[in-house]
């Protein structure tokens, strides 16, 4: 069964471009350019995966996630952005997106990312892996709830390989673990990112702006 995909982006040109690239590979069930319309249409059509632009007027992609997740928690989100601002990307992942890829991604990679997200897995582009490592490494160890906030050595290792543009398969081979285990580590990182204390990450975001 083909995956039902919905596209939210305020750039018409980019939307039609993605739509053309995805044609025949997934089922694009709709697109929207504004937060409000997007929330309404997604809640109506209930796609499997929403491709979501991080930077949108009126609350941005985060508002779309919040508006949909309340009513349809099963709809998955893949953030897509031309922006490298780490705070924005981490914020949208914390809001509930299953992954983040940059807009320069190739069509094949995009389809594979969509498939992974639809299956409930996390998709970490090298950039996102870098942002997450950066966020967690700047949180001092004494400040955090060890159960929740700290990345294990293995998780850190997996993230670092993702940041070095390794695929899951390559990581599995290098670390002598199964692909499934790699996926589990990545999902755990995602969960920790979403649950970790807002306070610490706010400090991180703030410090980044000062640097």
């Amino acid at each position, binding site marked *: 069964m083909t995956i039902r995909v919905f596209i939210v982006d305020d750039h018409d040109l980019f939307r039609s471009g993605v739509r053309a690239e995805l044609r025949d590979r997934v089922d694009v069930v709709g697109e929207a350019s504004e937060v409000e319309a997007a929330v309404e249409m997604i809640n109506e059509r209930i796609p499997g995966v929403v491709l979501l632009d991080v930077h949108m007027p009126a609350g941005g992609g985060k508002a779309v996630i919040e508006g949909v997740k309340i009513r349809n928690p099963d709809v998955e989100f893949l953030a897509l952005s031309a922006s490298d601002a780490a705070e924005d990307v981490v914020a949208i992942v914390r809001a509930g997106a299953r992954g983040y890829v940059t807009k320069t991604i190739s069509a094949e990679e995009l389809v594979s990312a969509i498939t992974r997200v639809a299956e409930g897995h996390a998709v970490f582009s090298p*950039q996102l*892996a*870098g942002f997450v490592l*950066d966020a967690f*490494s*700047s949180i001092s160890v004494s400040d955090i709830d060890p159960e929740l906030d700290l990345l294990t050595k293995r998780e850190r290792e997996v993230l670092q390989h993702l*940041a070095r543009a*390794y695929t899951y398969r390559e990581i599995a081979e290098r670390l002598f673990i199964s692909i499934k285990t790699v996926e589990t580590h990545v999902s755990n990182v995602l969960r920790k990112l979403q649950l970790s204390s807002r306070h610490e990450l706010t400090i991180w975001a703030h410090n980044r702006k000062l*640097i």
Partner: protein
Amino acid sequence: MDTVDELTTDAERTLRRVVVGYRAVSAAWLVILGVVSVARSEGPARPGVVVATMVLAVGWALVTIALHARSSELLRSWSFVALDTGLAAWTLVAPDVAGSENFYGGYPMSPVFLAAYGRGMVGGLTVAVAMAAVQLSRLAGPADPTASSAAVLIYLFAGAVAGWAIAVLREADQTRRKAEAALAQEQAERVRAEQRSEMAAHLHDSVLQTLALIQRNSANDTEVASLARRQERELRAWLYGSEPGAIRGAFGEQIRRMCAEVEDAHQVAIELVIVGDAEGDESMDSLVQAAREAVVNAAKHSGADNIAVYAEALPERATVFVRDRGSGFDISTVAPDRQGLRESIIKRLERSGGSASVHTTIGAGTEVELVLER
């Protein structure tokens, strides 16, 4: 001129304070007169009525003061004005109050001012006419030393003047506030215009120039990609504030600049991820130099059009990974005279106390790992 929308301006507050203040003063004056009148040896026949009227006037003045602080909306309503006028009329017509020789104060004038404040000229004159009618009825009644025809004129005059003066004050205040708002808006617009022209100038110098170049070079794919990448990097730096050279010396910035230069010089795409940051120093410089050598090698020899660079600066160590999915090579066959790898990367880093290792598989690509303990 009816009620004013903005009840919170300074001018409105001042007007309200004056009107309510007059009310308080005249109520106090009424009490003094009442006490004097009751205390006289040949005092009023019904002192109870005098005392009750005093209590009523003071109580009502307190209610007005409380309302003035909380709900000026009610203070302005016609029903309040009517009730207020009725109570003031009572102080005039109550037996033994105004009629007693010494008992006459400014209290009956206060509803005229209040109505002029709340309902403008119409309100002031309406109440003035009502109070004048009460005075006229007293003139027509049994002889009353305090009833006078002059009071009738005073009411009408006060109502008209108060209503007019308040209207003039409000208008002046409104004009002033409008002028201030217009000035503020004009300033905001000027700032916006300046920002827009600055933005336009920047876009013209950068993006539009690049777009023109891209149109001229549209047949040359690599040139177009390179132009687009360079423009993207430049625009991103402008938008997100890491301008080239802005943080001179910082490790992350050096790596970023190095990658940009190699991208431009060798027509490859570099995917750069930076974690943490550190101050630059001599050994960090040698790490950046070694990384540059590794990136250039990958660009020149691997055949891949994508290179991944990962730079991590932690307090205890700095690491750079340079990875391509290109052809790979056999380390043992690298000619001893190929200085790049051995001299520029490994030796250079070892002199600074770091280490370099190369992992490569023919057909699968190469990864160079550069570590500098700090």
